[in-house]
């Protein structure tokens, strides 16, 4: 598939280098090709040595893959970032208000802005959270909001990830790698630093400790060393200086959570959990889960421990709820949304379904509960057969799908086998909500390495770039 016109991050439509890329472009043209190739090989070797890899299931023992790293940074000028950052703060604030509302009085449903059954029948809605108060009314403590640029370079929110968004470790490691490989480049640019993230995260987590706890013990809960995001779990625990625990390391006693240490049980106050709701507590959710802690939900409901993110946050990041986020901003904050949504057709609606069926070859159709780039149809990139078999799925269960226009995602020059060529990308900034809402400048830029591809997920052959927000 070819998207004929897309916004190029480095060049304007006349082919001139955009001002914020000028110094980089000049620098790159001075670099001999062999030198670049050598630096790229060096980056790969270093990532392997650091073990910044993810385990691949079912392959040869000890097989670990790198997420490809591209050495051409994605550069965002200060004025663009400021708008984005304000928009993200506003959006996450509204999302948190929405989750709180859903688990308390459900004002937004009563006011008729969102059909109640859309929310209450949603698989991510957790009845057990109804009426439960959480510290600071914060539910989505860590949000990873996927943003893309389309058209003339306008930013659109593609997805709000409010459960266990990952990728922030790559934001930090990519920067470290760039500084190691190209130290002199950083003297030509004033790039906003990102390495404060672990500090901000720890402060945020401490700020949402259960009421009355003055010196809270924070831990990171991981599914274990074979999880694909394990590197990030270990990285964040280490950077924050807190324990990285697994479910079996903890137990619940009289409404509190303890971890088993070499000196006996030690109380845990805040759990930054990187385990999905379903696996958190075998007594409350999936009974076969060995990743969780029996009795955790009850301790949580009683206020003995804080979970970040809160159980049931997923109700707000579902693709079927996504179309209503701008409405949430208006309803809870009384403001106009700063960031656009992508127009979305909900196939459960008759009219929308008819429209979508008519235009399958030009739309992107996604599963409502899908993630990771699986179970989707990119119309313009699909064969006639693929489209007709997807049509059957759609007709069988229209409520499981939404559709969006195929966005001409912006592209940035990227090293590929044939040299440097534009590749499409997105951006995932990480938004932290505690007493205040904060974010580090930038986020994770993912890039689709295959020519023409719009799918940036690492499980689908995507890579990453360092993301530079320039200081104004």
């Amino acid at each position: 598939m070819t998207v004929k016109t897309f916004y190029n991050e480095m060049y304007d439509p006349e082919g001139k280098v955009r001002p914020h890329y000028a110094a980089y472009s000049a620098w790159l043209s001075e670099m001999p090709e062999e030198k670049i190739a050598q630096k790229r090989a060096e980056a790969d070797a270093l990532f392997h040595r650091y073990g910044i890899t993810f385990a691949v299931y079912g392959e040869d023992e000890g097989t670990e893959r790198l997420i490809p790293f591209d050495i051409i940074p994605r550069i965002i000028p200060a004025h663009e970032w400021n708008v984005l950052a304000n928009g993200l703060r506003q959006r996450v604030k509204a999302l948190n208000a929405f989750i709180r509302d859903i688990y308390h009085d459900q004002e937004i449903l009563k006011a008729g802005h969102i059909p109640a059954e859309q929310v209450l029948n949603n698989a991510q809605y957790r009845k057990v959270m109804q009426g439960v108060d959480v510290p600071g009314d914060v539910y989505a403590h860590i949000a990873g909001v996927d943003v893309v640029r389309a058209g003339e370079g306008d930013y659109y929110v593609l997805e709000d990830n409010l459960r266990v968004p990952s990728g922030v470790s790559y934001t930090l490691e990519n920067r470290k790698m760039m500084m190691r490989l190209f130290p002199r480049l950083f003297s030509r640019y004033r790039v906003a630093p990102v390495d404060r993230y672990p500090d901000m995260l720890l402060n945020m987590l401490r700020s949402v400790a259960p009421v009355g706890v003055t010196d809270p013990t924070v831990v990171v809960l991981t599914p274990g060393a074979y999880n694909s995001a394990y590197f990030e779990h270990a990285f964040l625990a280490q950077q924050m200086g807190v324990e990285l625990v697994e479910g079996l390391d903890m137990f619940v006693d009289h409404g509190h959570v303890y971890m088993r240490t070499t000196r006996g049980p030690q109380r845990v106050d805040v759990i930054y959990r990187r385990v999905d709701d379903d696996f958190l507590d075998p007594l409350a959710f999936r009974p076969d889960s060995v990743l969780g802690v029996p009795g955790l939900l009850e301790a949580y409901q009683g206020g003995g421990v804080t979970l970040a993110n809160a159980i049931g946050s997923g109700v707000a990041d579902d693709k079927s709820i996504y179309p209503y986020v701008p409405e949430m901003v208006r309803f809870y904050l009384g403001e106009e949304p700063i960031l656009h949504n992508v127009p979305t057709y909900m196939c459960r609606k008759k009219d929308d379904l008819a429209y979508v069926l008519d235009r399958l070859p030009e739309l992107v159709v996604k599963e409502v509960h899908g993630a990771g780039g699986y179970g989707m149809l990119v119309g313009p990139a699909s064969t006639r057969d693929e489209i007709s078999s997807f049509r059957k799925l759609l007709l069988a269960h229209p409520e499981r799908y939404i559709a969006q226009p195929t966005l001409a995602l912006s592209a940035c020059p990227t090293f590929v086998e044939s040299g440097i060529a534009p590749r499409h990308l997105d951006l995932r900034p990480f938004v932290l909500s505690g007493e205040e809402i904060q974010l580090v400048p930038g986020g994770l830029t993912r890039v689709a390495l295959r020519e023409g591809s719009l799918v940036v997920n690492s499980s689908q052959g995507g890579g990453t770039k360092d993301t530079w927000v320039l200081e104004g």
Partner: protein
Amino acid sequence: MLSRTADHLYWMARYMERAENIARILDVNHRMSLMPQSEVQAEQAWGATLRIMGLENAFHQHYAEISADAVLEFMIFNPENPTSIRSCLRAARENAHAVRGTLTSELWETTNSTWLKMRDFTPHKLNDEGVSEFFEWVKFRSHLSRGVTLGTMLQDEALRFIRIGTFLERADNTLRILDVKYQLLLPAGEVEGGAADFYQWSALLRSVSAFEIYRRVYRDLITPSRVAEMMLLRVDMPRSLARCMKEVYNNLRVVSNDHSAETERRAGQMEANTRFGKIDDIVREGLHNYVVQALGRIQDLGNRIADDFLVPVSKPAEATV
């Protein structure tokens, strides 16, 4: 610190140390096999190597006959042999991976790169480039990992459990090396070996990096009982039982908790035995018996350390804030 974390650290250190000791044992045998000897002797020596690690049965499940190539393949590469060097380095890396956040990045990277490099070695490549160089490499990676540990890790509990793992494993290995060689070199009834055994005894010393030390300490002929003394009782000799027990005991005292008193006492008792023991007494009572008893005690200590510190025991009743 988390019990599970302590467990991984302890085993990470044990597996690294084990890889080194296997390399030492194999290396010494390999060197000896280059000296003039009968086929029977050669086979005996390789068989003894398997016996040191208690792997004779496992070996015969995979190979019909004992030969240098077969034993080397089995002890270096065989992934089904949990004690092959490859398996040990992998286990060390997996344990490190599980607690990489507790390790300094230098230590994690050292352990990780050792494993990555190990994957590049093949039996074919070793034939071309020489096994001795490979054994040197294993030893140096182990030295490096210990150096990085001491040079970068905070002196807290994590370091203590790493040290306990290292020295408990080393004590076990030193005892095994000594025992098998002693039996092999001193057939029943014979008190002292003949001059021809000089190479054998010196090779044994070299396998624990003690040849030069022996010369410096005794300035005399190499005799079996002095070799045994060095390997068992000399606290200034870094691979001796006495040194290992001193390290185990000292580190245990630092991490002690409210139910580890008996474990400390037993470690202390063993340490005192080596400190005040006399080699003449040990030889009179029978060296083999002494070694068997000591191995039993080390295993007991290992089990007790696991129970006291490493295995997460759920005792909600004892929960305290």
